[in-house]
């Protein structure tokens, strides 16, 4: 088992400084596409969390037997298998959400976060650590999505999770639930976080 220090760092990095979404700008296709409703976002996040953690574990377990030349293909196949599990589970138990998410569930396969973690981490690290890394990356991805979805749904429809929060005095900013709103919201989020990081660095000096 890895030293506790490394384990902690592995877990903490993707949540803050090395966040896959706002620091590495990975996997933003789905960040933008599914965040117009909080409920869909949470389910999508769970799917991604499931896939990142288990694919990290699997790839790490068999990393010594994967030939270097075809490793991308092997990784893709492993990831795709887990995505299929997510897809058929959603289809069976939550058909409505499945229909709304449409092709974006399948597109978890090409979500660069998962591939990136597999390439950068799971191929060179023991299974336990890779599992932790996968879970942390998944959580790092999820909380950004959930924050963005919260604001988009609130401003766009005056609701949170389908419940009306802002009263009838609120005029819906329908732009927020349409594509441009997604781009603006993510940009503002990145701006906010980067601003804080810059401030911290200046304070450290």
């Amino acid at each position, binding site marked *: 088992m890895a030293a506790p220090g490394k384990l902690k760092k592995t877990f903490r990095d993707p949540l803050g400084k090395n966040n896959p979404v706002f620091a590495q*700008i*990975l*996997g*933003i*296709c*789905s960040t*933008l*596409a599914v965040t117009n409703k909080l409920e869909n976002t949470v389910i999508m996040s769970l799917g991604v969390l499931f896939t990142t953690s288990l694919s990290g574990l699997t790839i790490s377990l068999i990393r010594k037997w994967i030939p270097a030349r075809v490793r*991308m*293909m092997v990784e*893709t*196949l492993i990831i*795709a*298998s887990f*995505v*299929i599990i997510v*897809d*058929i589970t959603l289809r069976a138990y939550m058909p409505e959400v499945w229909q709304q998410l*449409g*092709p974006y569930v*399948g*597109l978890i*396969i*090409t*979500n*660069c976060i998962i*591939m990136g973690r597999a390439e950068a981490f799971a191929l060179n690290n023991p299974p336990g650590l890779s599992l932790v890394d996968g879970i942390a990356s998944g959580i790092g991805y999820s909380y950004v999505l959930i924050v963005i979805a919260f604001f988009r749904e609130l401003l766009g429809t005056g609701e949170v999770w389908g419940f009306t929060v802002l009263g009838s005095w609120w005029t819906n900013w329908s*732009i927020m639930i*349409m*594509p*441009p*709103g*997604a*781009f*603006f919201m*993510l*940009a503002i989020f*990145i*701006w*906010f976080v*980067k*601003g804080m990081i*810059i401030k911290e660095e200046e304070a450290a000096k």
Partner: protein
Amino acid sequence: MTASSIAIFFAAIFTNNILLSNYLGMCSFLSVSREIKTSVGLGVAVIFVMASTSALNWLVYNYILLPFGLEYLRFIVFIIVIAAFVQLVEMVIERVSEVLYAALGIFLPLITVNCAILGVSLFMVIREYSLLESFTFGLGSGIGWFLAIMAMAGIRQKLKRARIPHGLEGAGITLIITGMMALAFMGFSGMLPIG
């Protein structure tokens, strides 16, 4: 039949732009759009691969997966078809034309992981297009993506000389501009409905 294909073609370029209204292909869009020259190379490669793989995947889906009841395997199969096709094209180009290979070669491997390519194939299944419709949808989506990345590369060249708030540099400002482009493209909506 042909009329609907033409409508789908234009809708995929303007009203339902794969990048600006479906958010697909953002990763390579953000990282490659720094220069016009590389954007053109990647854009052309995307158009070609998208049009061909959507038709190929349609054939595979309707003649192999559906008859055997294997629809749930479509993710894996589509990805394999795309990867194999890209590999094949790379080898052919390398043999046939060195100039073309130098221009497009490095972009082809990138394309396999471009989510827009897989996205087009998945949309085609969900919307139940015919073969011709799938092909024109793929072609239109590719051209739409090409348009978007070209416009962005042009704007980013000018942007180098602009003063941008510190925290917005890089990805932030690119996203805001993309948002504005999406706003502009929303002006087309209602012209051609698609669904």
